[in-house]
């Protein structure tokens, strides 16, 4: 399926017009809010800083490392941008990166740009932010805490973005729902490990060279604990809902009809969640398997990270 090493850029034609418009609206709202907040927080330095870092993220996406048999891993960057600059600036940066990729390099479509910005910008940054903040609060201020939190933020940002992409494709009828979700979730569970490792590597480098840069970005918002809880719930909600979506496409369709989604795009040739599935694959079994796979990978990833860190600190 979507194996683009540079992320999950959806091209034009793969999302229904309704979905494209809805996500455009959400992205515009989020970016508008971010512009206001950045003005307040960063002050005058904002333009050069965000411009250059957007370029750095773009260039950073070109860095690769050999994985196996000719394939290579890359960075998406939402997590590291969020950790370094905070969520609002990071959202603007990812917006610029995704927009330039679409406008100039046709990596991702123009009509679906709103959705791509939402996926890699809003979802990527939000998930990174809440994960990182929560874990830092729980784990503390030492180096290993920074790295572990960074890994988790990066992995989750990739995984949840992938799930949202799968949902968008399924709703648009561009992919059978019970293949899109497990395929995207499965593949990006692995790709997410790469993102986690690269993010950890960046944090390790920056921790050694300019620790202050890591600390400035992570100043927690004045909002209380409630925000973290809500954020985590939201993130967890998406992760949980998607298997449900694949298990019960009728349910989502019912919800969509209730909310008048169907009134937007007059395209009677396909329903909101198309009723077709790959033959021979039962939805219930898939949902369970999917949850199991994701769960196992989360545990494995955490174990990986901790084992590595232990080895590092006892090595030299």
């Amino acid at each position, binding site marked *: 399926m979507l194996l683009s090493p540079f992320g999950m850029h959806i091209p034009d034609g793969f999302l229904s017009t309704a979905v494209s418009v809805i996500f455009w609206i959400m992205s515009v709202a989020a970016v508008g809010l971010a512009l206001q907040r950045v003005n307040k927080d960063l002050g005058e330095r904002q333009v050069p800083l965000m411009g250059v870092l957007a370029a750095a993220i773009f260039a950073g996406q070109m860095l690769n490392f050999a994985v196996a048999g000719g394939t290579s891993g890359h960075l998406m960057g939402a997590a590291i941008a969020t950790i370094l600059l905070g969520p609002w600036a990071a959202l603007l940066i990812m917006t610029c990166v995704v927009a330039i990729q679409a406008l100039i390099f046709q990596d991702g479509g123009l009509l679906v740009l709103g959705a791509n910005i939402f996926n890699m910008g809003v979802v990527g940054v939000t998930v990174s932010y809440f994960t990182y903040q929560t874990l830092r609060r729980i784990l503390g201020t030492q180096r290993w805490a920074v790295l572990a939190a960074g890994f988790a933020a990066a992995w989750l940002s990739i995984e949840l973005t992938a799930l949202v992409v799968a949902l968008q494709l399924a709703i648009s009828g561009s992919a059978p729902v019970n293949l899109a979700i497990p395929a995207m979730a499965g593949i990006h569970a692995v790709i997410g490990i790469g993102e986690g490792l690269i993010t950890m590597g960046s944090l390790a480098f920056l921790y*050694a060279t300019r620790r202050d840069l890591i600390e400035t970005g992570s100043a927690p918002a004045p909002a209380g604990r409630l925000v973290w809880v809500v954020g985590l719930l939201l993130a967890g909600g998406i992760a949980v809902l998607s298997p449900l979506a694949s298990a019960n496409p009728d349910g989502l369709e019912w919800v969509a009809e209730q909310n008048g989604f169907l009134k937007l795009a007059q395209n009677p040739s396909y329903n909101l969640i198309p009723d077709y599935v790959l033959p021979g694959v039962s939805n219930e079994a898939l949902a369970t398997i999917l949850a199991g796979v994701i769960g196992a990978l989360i545990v494995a990833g955490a174990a990986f990270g901790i084992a590595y860190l232990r080895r590092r600190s006892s090595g030299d």
Partner: protein
Amino acid sequence: MHHTIEIDNLHYAYPDGHSALYGVSLHIEACEKVALVGPNGAGKSTLMLHLNGILSSSQGKLRVAGLDLIPANFGKIRSRVGLVFQSPDDQLFSPTVYDDVAFGPLYQGLSVAEVRQRVEEALALVHMSDYARRVSHHLSVGEKKRIAIASVLSMKPEVLVLDEPTAGLDPRARRSLIKLLDELSMTMLVSTHDLHMVRELFPRMIVMDQGLVVADGPTSLLMEDEALLAAHGLEKP
């Protein structure tokens, strides 16, 4: 063990069509120290990037450290040819000095003990043994350049290729780098604008201009040829 560089009629054009090398030929013997001089844009860096397979050309013969420059040999060649770029910031990408110097041997798959030994030897060669735990980014330009050289020496290359080693250094750092290059015994090809250093360290000098070798001979002789120097944008030191 060959320790040699053999280039015959090398042509190279960039992907966008713009030609950089028009048939370069030169031979460097084991343990020779050769300076490569010429104006910016002459093709010096382009030539150097061929020596470890980063750039490839289909026209001309290229043989370094006894191996032909074909993709199958690139891995071995990169162990035998140490290429040090002009900007140390592009080469020091690990958190500590130790990590940067260890990269080469680690990539080769050497054991932890061997890697440690290589790093210690390399740092000793550049007189920076105390710097292992330091953060590369915080060092001065001169120190970074020496670490960059160490990061290549740790692979125990037969041939050392350096791109503008003294560029951007203050007199003290420059002096210390020249002393270092003097102490290293391997075959050396150094591209530079620093003609004082050339006269001091390099018995042989190759002049390049517009993608061609225009002169190749003893430094003492070529340095006296003011017309030649002037014709290629060089000033007699």
